[in-house]
């Protein structure tokens, strides 16, 4: 297991490096230089470039860039908040986004699993139909539709939950964004879980396990669920992407001070330093999720863990 995890981590690190290389190239292909003010003389420009290390050869610049990015120094914002270090801009916002994201994935996966399992156990019953309808709705509508519907009915008409995010009432403020973001995961996981559970329940190994006379809890929970989880884990990565894109709009709707809304305004104001920094943060998040999924995969399925271990020795 250790070897397997180590390999996954190495792959993630390499991925991060590749992403940084791409970002660096993008930075360099931006038109002009940061110092293309007409009042600056050639000597002054050279001095400035020397000060910021821009006179060094590209590989050195890249290494400096790596060091800066990895230590969380993303430079300063030019437009949104002039000369504000991006790192502190992000620090204030990142936890809100992560919190809502994690809540949404956890809620969506748990409820989705539950719905899928119940639907598989009680096939063609009312509950099964209900789960199917919910899944179709959850996949068919983008998260902002749920966000707007909820903020109108629950936030505005009923007034049960805050319409806009407020730091003073953070927990309750995250309820509607979490639910609207979780709908897609819930629907997808429910659909997958149902199909997988039906298939697993009809498999020979479940028949053998059943013929041993073990308790139905063990039969379902240990043999059934674990095998059904293998393909379900696979969809977690695409779900995360869906969640990140969804969060861009949902954060706007509820005025959440997260990195999604930061990215949107950075794009609007052409603050490309901030854009690149947020893109980097998103990439890191996605890579972390991929890493977690890979490790989960190895934990759940010995065939994957052992096959990859054998291959790496």
């Amino acid at each position, binding site marked *: 297991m250790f070897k397997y995890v180590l390999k996954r981590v190495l792959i993630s690190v390499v991925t991060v490096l590749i992403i940084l290389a791409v970002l660096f190239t993008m930075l360099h292909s931006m038109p002009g230089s940061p110092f293309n003010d007409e009042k600056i003389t050639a000597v002054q420009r050279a001095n400035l470039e020397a000060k910021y290390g821009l006179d060094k050869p590209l590989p050195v610049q890249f290494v400096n860039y790596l060091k800066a990015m990895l230590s969380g120094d993303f430079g300063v914002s030019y437009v949104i908040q002039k000369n504000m270090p991006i790192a502190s801009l992000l620090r204030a916002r990142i936890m809100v986004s992560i919190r809502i994201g994690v809540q949404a994935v956890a809620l969506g996966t748990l409820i989705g699993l539950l719905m899928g399992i119940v639907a598989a156990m009680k*096939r063609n019953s009312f509950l099964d139909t209900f789960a199917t309808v919910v899944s179709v709705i959850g996949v068919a509508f983008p998260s902002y539709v749920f966000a707007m519907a909820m903020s109108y009915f629950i936030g505005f008409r009923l007034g049960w939950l805050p319409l806009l995010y407020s730091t003073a009432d953070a927990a309750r403020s995250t309820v509607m964004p979490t639910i609207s973001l979780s709908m897609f995961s819930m629907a997808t996981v429910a659909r997958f879980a149902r199909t997988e559970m039906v298939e697993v329940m009809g*498999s*020979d*190994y479940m*028949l*053998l*396990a*059943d*013929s*041993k*006379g*073990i*308790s*139905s809890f*063990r039969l379902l929970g*240990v*043999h059934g669920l*674990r*095998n059904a989880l*293998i393909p379900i884990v696979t969809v977690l990565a695409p779900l995360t992407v869906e969640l990140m894109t969804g969060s861009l709009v949902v954060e706007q709707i509820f005025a959440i001070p997260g990195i999604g809304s930061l990215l949107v305004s950075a794009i609007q104001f052409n603050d490309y330093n901030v854009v690149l920094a947020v893109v980097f943060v998103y990439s890191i998040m996605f890579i972390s999720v991929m890493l977690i999924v890979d490790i989960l995969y190895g934990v*759940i*399925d*010995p*065939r994957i863990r*052992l096959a990859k271990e054998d291959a790496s020795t």
Partner: protein
Amino acid sequence: MEKTLTIRDLRISFQASGGTVRAVRGVDLDLYQGETLAIVGESGSGKSVTVKAIMGIVSSNQIVEGGTILYRCREKDEWTERDLLRLSRREMRRHINGTHIAMVFQDPMTSLDPTMTIGMQLMEGMIQHLHLSRALARRRAIELLELVGIPEAEKRMRNYPHQLSGGMRQRVVIAIALSCSPDILICDEPTTALDVTIQAKILELIQEIQRKTGISVIYITHDLGVVAKVADYVAVMYAGRIAEKGTVEDIFYDPRHPYTWGLLSSMPDISDESSERLYTIPGSPPSMVDLPAGDPFAPRNAYALEADFKAEPPMFQISQTHFAASWLLDERAPKVAMPDSLRRRIESMRGGERTDG
């Protein structure tokens, strides 16, 4: 000889999209302690459905229309008899499955849980039923793996199914079945999915276990050669009913049912020097949804009488142990003997045996 299982008039059907599949239509079977009952018959004749009913394993669209499965065993020095069809799934799990009746399935490649170690799959039944501690269960599991002939048993405990060959996996499945010392072992075509050389070894293993433990075995197979080797009693199934049943001698030396004749004639025989073409029974088994009137075997039966297309034959008793369901055994029926080629074959088999022994 104690009787341990008595199946009477078992009738099972399935609700399927095409209609009601009448898979088992009045089956009577008996199993005696320490003996082997072989069930043979073409694909779809209801063999698996019958034995799964003994295990209480039912699918959701299954209807048990009637019958009894009486199971007799000693419990705390007292003989008890229970009708397994009256027990709930939960009671079956707690008191019967694994501990009294265990089963080995056809395909060892798919019958082990791919996410659990061999050791745990062996231990979980013992922990649940015998309330053994993990350490004790582990020790017993290693002994069981050694019993079924798995080398380096201790190391294998940590293996996952995909790290073992098919033959090894089937040994593991047999070890699992034996783990809680059941009285009855049901083997549903345990060697069909394996190589010929491994088939023989698994067969020997089951026989050896039977000698050591005195367990009763129900053995389902398509292979009459295997039947001749392992069985004490044979039941020939056709279209959800027993066509003929009796001791191995009854079935192999004195077959009475034309379907049994067909099966025996289609059996490849290495000792048979005559280069006769291998016989196959013409036609295919009937659809179990719309059974024809009369004997469902009649359309494929060269000896079919007029009566055969009108009513299904009852079970005729030939001797103490030998029964067959064919109108040919009715006293009004014309005398029809088995095909000559089969008779010659049987005579040569008997002759061979006499000189042997």
